[in-house]
């Protein structure tokens, strides 16, 4: 005596919906009231999904998206460099920092200053060749003295000067809206910028790398979005379609340099 066939599964019913079921399976579904009801429910769900089209973007937004996508190219498409991962600093930078750390460590041991603690080592490391080069970027004047870092878990270094404090925002949208018309040129009084030159320059290098921008940012700002520190750069990028410069604004998370948003004004 043959065992009765099991009731059709959701996978069977899905195959019926896609026209991939054999006649035998279709007959089984037809003969099973529960399977028929389930098939109807699945059909209704798909009908709801398909009857709810995504509202297309408006023309202005499409223009911005395409201009931003093409603008980093700055030349022949086929000559574009491969995209650089935004999460990983360049290998040469890692190697330089490691070598600098080793050299400084050996120097400390040699001079008998190894008991001066990890703070000395950290401070010295931050002044190593590659980091110091980043910190001394002419586009962002350095603060005169080392100041404590105020972002937990962030890289240390001199507190950045020349960075506009943009304030705190509940969402990235709110920050985006605040920058829609223009970039503020000065911080509200008595607001210290809680970010270091090292952080500013590290993220700036990654943004320029990813977007293929060689120009230095015209403005750099710092904001807090839902308690997360964010760096905002405004580059004097040019429009693809015309000769009028179209500033490009890019916001990234301070700790990872991951993109929060990018738009062209």
């Amino acid at each position, binding site marked *: 005596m043959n065992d009765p066939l099991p009731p*059709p599964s*959701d996978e069977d019913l899905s195959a019926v919906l896609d026209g991939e079921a054999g006649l035998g399976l279709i007959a089984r579904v037809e003969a099973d009231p529960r399977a028929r009801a389930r098939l109807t429910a699945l059909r209704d769900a*798909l009908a*709801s*999904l398909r009857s709810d089209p995504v509202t297309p973007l408006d023309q202005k937004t499409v223009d911005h998206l395409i201009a931003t*996508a*093409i603008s980093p190219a700055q030349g022949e498409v086929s000559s574009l460099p491969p995209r650089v991962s935004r999460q990983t600093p360049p290998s040469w930078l890692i190697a330089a920092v490691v070598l600098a750390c080793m050299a400084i460590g050996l120097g400390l041991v040699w001079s008998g200053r190894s008991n001066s603690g990890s703070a000395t080592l950290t401070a010295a490391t931050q002044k190593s060749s590659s980091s110091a080069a980043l910190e001394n970027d002419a586009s962002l004047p350095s603060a005169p003295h080392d100041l404590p870092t105020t972002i937990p878990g962030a890289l240390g270094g001199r507190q950045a000067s020349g960075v506009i404090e943009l304030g705190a925002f509940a*969402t990235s*949208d709110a920050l985006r809206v605040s920058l829609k018309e223009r970039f503020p040129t000065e911080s509200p009084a008595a607001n210290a910028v809680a970010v270091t030159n090292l952080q500013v320059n590290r993220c700036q290098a990654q943004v320029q790398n990813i977007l293929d921008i060689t120009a230095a940012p015209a403005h750099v700002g710092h904001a807090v979005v839902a308690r997360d520190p964010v760096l905002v750069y405004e580059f004097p990028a040019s429009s693809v379609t015309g000769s009028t410069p179209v500033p490009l604004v890019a916001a990234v998370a301070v700790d990872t340099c991951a*993109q929060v948003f990018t738009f062209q004004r």
Partner: protein
Amino acid sequence: MTSPDAPAQYTEEGARVAAAQAGDRPALEHLLRDHQAQVYAVCRRITGNDTDALDATQEALIAVVRGLPTFDGRAKFSTWAYRIATNSCLDELRRRRRRPLVGLPEFEGTTLDLPDNHGPALADQVANRLDVSAALAELPEDFRAVVVLRDLCQLDYAEIAEVLDIPAGTVRSRIARGRAQLADHLVGNQTGSSERPTSRP
């Protein structure tokens, strides 16, 4: 050589892709315009809100431009674009998980561009859109992606397998389970899909 009105000359996508790969900027722009709507639709459905969809779309279009020299034409350009868009969306969702969320995540940033009328159907339209968005948002990302690619983008199983780089059997299984969960959410079926027979062990 490219004339100023080059986009009008391209009637076939293959020729347009080849021209764009050769550095023809108008052709590239035309190509992006042709596909931005489908890229955004995928992103809107997978990410579940306008803001992330816009960011993912921007990332996808940039990736298309960057990756165009490596596109070898073995797959359809649209399938290739879907693959890039889907990966951008999944990346965006991973980034979103690392960010603190404010408010209700599934409706954050949602705008409803409905016709400006005040008839009785308006409430139904709003409710339906919220229902569909919420139901999709409830799906695990892996299921959501295959359902969007199959039922909105009309890709077949083999194309979805190529887009997501997973076996066709996995695609079949995820589609079935995703649709089942979607139906449960939309229809308000109280019977969990785990209680329903499935061919998976």
